[in-house]
């Protein structure tokens, strides 16, 4: 089975090569492969080249007017009208798409033709600028295929963006004669201006049988949910006018209406609003007395005042988008571009890409009946939310409205998501602006779940050769009631671990894993042997922790299973002189890290550390033989956004007389190195994810005036 997903090695890095006997076969196979490859390549190199360079397709210089013409006889077949009952499972031939490892649909574009009727007159403009841009975008995208037999979706090159620019019957005939038309199955039409006078249908009137419609102006009655795609009406001004993003915040006007062709009834209601609320409401109209040469579409007027359009939209917090003859309005695109929050007043309108976009975050939808209440409704929205909506509006424009390319790709992605739902793009990816994606976290262990105590924890001891101290740690840890297994990671390749009989006898299973290389990251490998969620990482010289302290640590971890819960606390500080981060191991009032020399955490973070550590951190740590614990702190904080929990006052771990900065961490160079690590990691993560807190976790009755024997965890060391 081909999977797009990576296959993870579940066995662990403890791979001691087994070769020797298989040496021979291995080499012979390799030889033959190489030999074959050589012959194949050689033959190909020196074979006379019968394949001409066909790059002229791409550099082709042809004119749209030179495309072949197709004559449509008057009696050529017309497709059925659009079938309102079509859904993906009834009208779409999903077998054409097949299962493919990339989970991408293949889209074919018919080549461009000119269609003429019997008398030789053109049926429509061959192709509009926008439709050409749209097809170019599809062709450049990874959805595109030029092989009609492998295609899952077909896009006709017949331009139906604007219904008013085409002849309905003849266009339908042109569709019907497409080579793979087959009642329009798996065909996708793009239309932005549907309907015509007098009643303006909300979907394209061209008979199209089963074809999918990406339409700009659907009403809830014509939109086939889950089949059609609602798209924006593109505003050509998007390409012409550069409106730089404006920071969110209060603007000069509160409500602005900029549409020119409002129904007089709407205009009256808006003017009433203006009369009531004064200057904060601005109702613009077309200009009547413009001098020649000034494009009317780029100006708006209020009484004698002239405003530049669409720049004026940036002066207002809310911009009204009222329905006209059609439901979809190009002004929506301009409004979003200006970062003005659209107030959409168009009953039953299906908003663009509503299948995936959460419009409540970017707009205010108000029923037509409630028009007189607009002002009060908008006033009730908190300022902070308005600012977010402004940002969101701008983001929607940038991502999905800005160009025909954006519109085309979003449409195809929506259809793609329906066909490969298990690979669909998530709500967050569609809706969160980059700034939010950047600052937010999505905790992989988001469910508030307190793991059952009975599961216990697995202690993982990383060791090299300090056998005596290791055995002491094993004996101490084995006294902890909730220990369920002990795993020794033997990181020394030059020496075998002691014989089985020499190991301390303990009440839980003890497993020794031998590693292939002496790497620090071996400590964080998600070994299959770890069957519990909780992992206690402990160094082979941490002998001071009492059984009560460890058991209490486990209980604390159960209450915070998505955090690092550990004993040695450390802090990072900003060094103002050096202008960089500094590592602090003094006893301070704050902690931001716990060392994994003695810490509980969820096994999932082993998986993250091994497979998802950003940048080159993992290799860097292995190469420097240092800072694996800091890397783990960064990783967990970055993915959960939460602080560590330091448990119990314990500060000495190796011997009673040791100071806080004991053993390894004593010398100055070490401190410098650790500081370097923090700076390095902060730059790889692009941020400082560590959170500083002032608290630590103690048993409820710690140091309380209460008989020790009644306390659950009496034996909590003071230092």
């Amino acid at each position: 089975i081909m999977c797009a997903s990576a296959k993870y090695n579940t066995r662990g890095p403890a791979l001691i090569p087994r070769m020797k006997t298989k040496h021979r076969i291995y080499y012979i196979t390799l030889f033959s492969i190489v030999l074959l490859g050589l012959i194949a390549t050689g033959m190909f190199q020196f074979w006379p080249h019968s394949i001409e360079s066909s790059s002229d397709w791409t550099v082709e210089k042809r004119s749209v007017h030179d495309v072949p013409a197709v004559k449509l006889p008057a009696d050529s077949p017309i497709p059925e009208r659009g079938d309102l009952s079509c859904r993906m499972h009834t009208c779409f031939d999903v077998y054409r798409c097949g299962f493919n490892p990339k989970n991408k649909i293949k889209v074919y574009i018919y080549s461009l033709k000119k269609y003429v009727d019997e008398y030789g007159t053109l049926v429509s403009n061959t192709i509009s600028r926008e439709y050409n841009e749209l097809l170019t975008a599809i062709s450049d995208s990874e959805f595109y295929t030029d092989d009609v037999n492998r295609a899952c979706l077909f896009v006709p090159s017949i331009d139906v963006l604007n219904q008013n620019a085409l002849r309905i019957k003849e266009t339908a005939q042109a569709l019907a004669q497409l080579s793979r038309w087959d009642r329009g199955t798996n065909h996708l039409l793009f239309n932005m201006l549907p309907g015509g006078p007098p009643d303006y249908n909300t979907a394209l009137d061209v008979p199209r049988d089963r074809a999918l419609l990406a339409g700009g102006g659907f009403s809830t009655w014509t939109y086939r949910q889950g089949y059609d795609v609602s798209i924006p009406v593109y505003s050509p001004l998007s390409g012409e006018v550069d409106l730089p993003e404006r920071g969110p915040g209060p603007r000069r006007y509160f409500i602005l209406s900029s549409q020119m062709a409002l129904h007089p009834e709407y205009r009256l209601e808006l003017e009433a609003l203006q009369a009531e609320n004064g200057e904060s409401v601005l109702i613009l109209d077309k200009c009547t007395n413009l001098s020649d040469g000034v494009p009317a579409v780029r100006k708006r007027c209020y009484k004698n005042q002239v405003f530049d359009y669409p720049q004026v939209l940036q002066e207002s917090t809310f911009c009204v988008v009222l329905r006209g003859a059609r439901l979809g309005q190009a002004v929506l695109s301009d409004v979003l571009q200006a970062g003005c929050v659209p107030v959409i007043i168009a009953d039953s309108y299906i908003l663009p890409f509503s299948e995936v976009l959460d419009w409540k975050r970017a707009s205010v939808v108000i029923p037509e009946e409630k028009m007189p209440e607009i002002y009060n409704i908008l006033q009730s929205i908190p300022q902070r939310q308005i600012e977010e909506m402004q940002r969101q509006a701008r983001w929607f424009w940038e991502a999905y409205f800005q160009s025909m390319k954006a519109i085309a790709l979003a449409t195809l992605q929506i259809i793609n998501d329906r066909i490969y739902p298990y690979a669909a793009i998530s709500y967050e990816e569609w809706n969160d602006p980059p700034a939010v994606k950047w600052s937010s976290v999505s905790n992989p262990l988001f469910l508030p779940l307190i793991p059952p105590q009975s599961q216990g924890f697995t202690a993982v001891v990383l060791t090299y050769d300090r056998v005596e101290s290791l055995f002491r740690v094993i004996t101490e840890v084995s006294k902890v009631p909730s220990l369920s297994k002990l795993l020794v990671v033997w990181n020394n390749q030059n020496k075998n671990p002691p014989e089985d009989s020499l190991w301390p006898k303990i009440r839980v299973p003890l497993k020794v894993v031998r590693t292939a290389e002496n790497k620090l990251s071996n400590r964080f490998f998600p070994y299959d042997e770890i069957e519990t969620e909780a992992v206690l990482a402990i160094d082979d010289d941490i002998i001071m922790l009492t059984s009560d302290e460890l058991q209490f640590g486990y209980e604390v971890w159960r209450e915070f299973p998505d955090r690092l819960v550990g004993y040695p606390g450390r802090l990072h500080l900003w060094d103002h002189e050096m202008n960089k981060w500094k590592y602090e191991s003094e006893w301070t009032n704050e902690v931001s890290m716990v060392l994994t020399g003695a810490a509980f955490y969820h096994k999932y973070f082993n998986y993250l550390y091994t497979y998802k550590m950003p940048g080159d951190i993992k290799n860097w740590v292995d190469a420097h033989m240092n800072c694996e614990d800091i890397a783990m702190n960064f990783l967990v904080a970055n993915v959960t956004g939460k602080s560590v929990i330091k448990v119990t006052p314990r500060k000495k771990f190796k011997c009673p007389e040791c100071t806080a900065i004991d053993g390894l961490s004593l010398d100055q160079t070490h401190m410098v190195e650790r500081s370097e690590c923090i700076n390095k990691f902060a730059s790889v993560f692009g941020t400082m994810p560590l959170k500083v807190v002032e608290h630590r976790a103690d048993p409820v009755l710690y140091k309380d005036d209460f008989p020790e024997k009644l306390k659950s965890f009496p034996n909590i060391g003071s230092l």
Partner: protein
Amino acid sequence: MQTRKKYIFLTFLASWLLLFFFGGDQLRRFAFFSGRKAEARRNWPRWKDRSLLKSFADPEELQRDGDPPLLSPRERRAARLSVSRSSRCRMETCFDFSRCERHGFKVFTYPQERGQPVSETYGKILSSIERSRYHTLKPEEACLFILSIDTLDRDHLSGQYVRDVDEKIRGFPLWNGGRNHLIFNLYSGTWPSYTGELGFDTGQAMLAKASFDTLSFRPGFDISIPLFSKEHPQRGGDRGWLRQRSVPPKKQYLLVFKGKRYLTGIGSGTRNALHHIHNGQDIISLTTCKHGKDWEKHKDTRCDKDNVDYERFDYQELLHNSTFCIVPRGRRLGSFRFLEALQAACIPVLLSDGWELPFAEAIDWGKAAVVGSERLLLQIPSAVRCIHPERLLAFQQHTQFLWDAYFSSVDKIVHTTLEIIKDRLSPHRSRSRLLWNTLPGGLLVLPDFSTHLGDFPFYYLQHGYSPSKKFTAFIRAVSQAGSLSQPILRLIQAVSGSQYCAQIVVLWSCEKPPPPSGKWPQSPVPLTIIQGRRKLSHRFFPFEAIQTDAVLSLDEDTSLSTSEVDFAFSVWRSFPERIVGFPTQSHFWDPEQGRWGYTSKWTNELSIVLTAAAFYHRYYHSLFTEYLPAGLRELVDGLAACEDILMNVLVAAVTKLPPIKVTQRKQHKEGVAQQAECGDGAAGTPPPGQRSPPAPHSAPAKAEGTNGSRRFSQRQDCLNQLADWFGYMPLVSSQLRLDPVLFKDQVSVLRKKYPSLEKP
């Protein structure tokens, strides 16, 4: 020998690499590698005159947007109302919004008629509505109406089928063509076609129906609900089954199904094919032919073997041990399996084409289920194998979140239905999809409080906000005297000394007027006095005066120092969704009496933080007052000293997490009379001298004296009544206390940030 081999090998390799680099271009086009005739991809041409192409519509045309339509907007809306058929109903055509304007969203249930028994399930639905905060007894106030006729089972072959519904409905004066009515239905249609027909004219009523198909579903009007069994609990509901989160999931099976195979009729296509994916190892797909009376008549060659295999596996065991569960359509589109799989954290793989998924208007099912296609059954195994392990973990957790938030009880299903309808009434004050699909779920988020994520305690991390840096001290004063007591003066001084204190609000809950402003102590922060009501629950009213996210709730006789307050606030900023406070108590299950016990003794655990001294988010005031049904608040007002337990229960029910205890310097209550009565004794307020501090070694409750024991048993009663209301015990225990990092460490006091916490 060995070395020679190595050299030959190296030479080969080198020459091959060279050839590859130089000939790579051709190589890539070589038919053998590209799989088809070599030629460059034929892209859409770059027309040389593309810049000259005309726009699809000229700007003028776009902005003018056609000729003005013949009908004015008002006429159009009126026309829409008059011609709309019920099959085309939408909120704006078939629902009368004006009914909801005056009294808000109120729901009226028709009174039960005599001799008109309803099924157990419908009884539960009706009682869920009656328990909801939207229920009203007055039809003239109502915005939404629910029939008393049991419409759940509309299969006319069923015993529960109610006849002559049309006739009965016609007799209802409130029916009004079905406008603003909501009709619940679980089973519609019957053998053989199982159409969605209900067998009576539903008029313009909305349908909340299980097994809805996308074609008859009226988007934005109807609501698809899940199929649930008659054993589904009224409230509370069982928890999900996910206990362990592992990557990759530690489950024996990848994909399972066990169920009936229809030999004929609707739905048989999919069920007949399910056995094809069975591999006996990690994919178990078992079907039985045995169902109905005459199955042997249609029996095929597979049946006997299948029936034997079928008996070998237990359905519950499969549910527990599989990563994915196939949820195929039955005769109808929905099945019980769906909720079963959801609860079991077995990721549902839906094979039910054209099913409008339950609450799809709110719920993003792509995060919790794989929506497969009946036609692509054979691709399902490879598709689910390809889902990344971390995605599986997210899926599993999401099933549990959805189960718990919207499906685990009839109450939740019904309340979700009501909230979805309520959201439609004022789109600008409704929940975004984000709120519905992130913890703690839409039911616990009140859009009337705010629609901004940053105003709630739940979304700080997800959106990179942080809670406000200041708090409001909220003191409840009940002292008898018309003057200010010493403790309250001390308290105001201590609290206002905190650099994080933004304001002090005093809730004056006495009949005597508060002392004039001159008598209050000078404090560096603004002090507001609110005249409170006598009700105990009034303490948690969402007062406008509270302006900060954090509330420090205090009793007037609480004694706290400034540094205690500072430290607790710094802890709260790390846990803004929890109650963070000082004195605590705990609950336990008393197996002898078969009820919940409550203790104020010193214990190694805690599950309740007294609101006499606690930080929490101000949103909980709104939840307390607006989310909890009025009945519950009345219960609390009737019992003395129950309101803080209810607050703890509420927060625990929302967060599923225990509260947090922080360092307390000494006893908070100094044994003096507290909760002193003001004015004449209101019913239920406790006599003085009760909330005595839980002394170490405190004697058993019985020995605490009559007052003490009465109060104690009231709190215990309260706990049990609340557990009954919620349907389970939401409180969660914790074994830890958060202390300053250097608390009681043997280091110089000068180095400590909160030295005063350690003074005896």
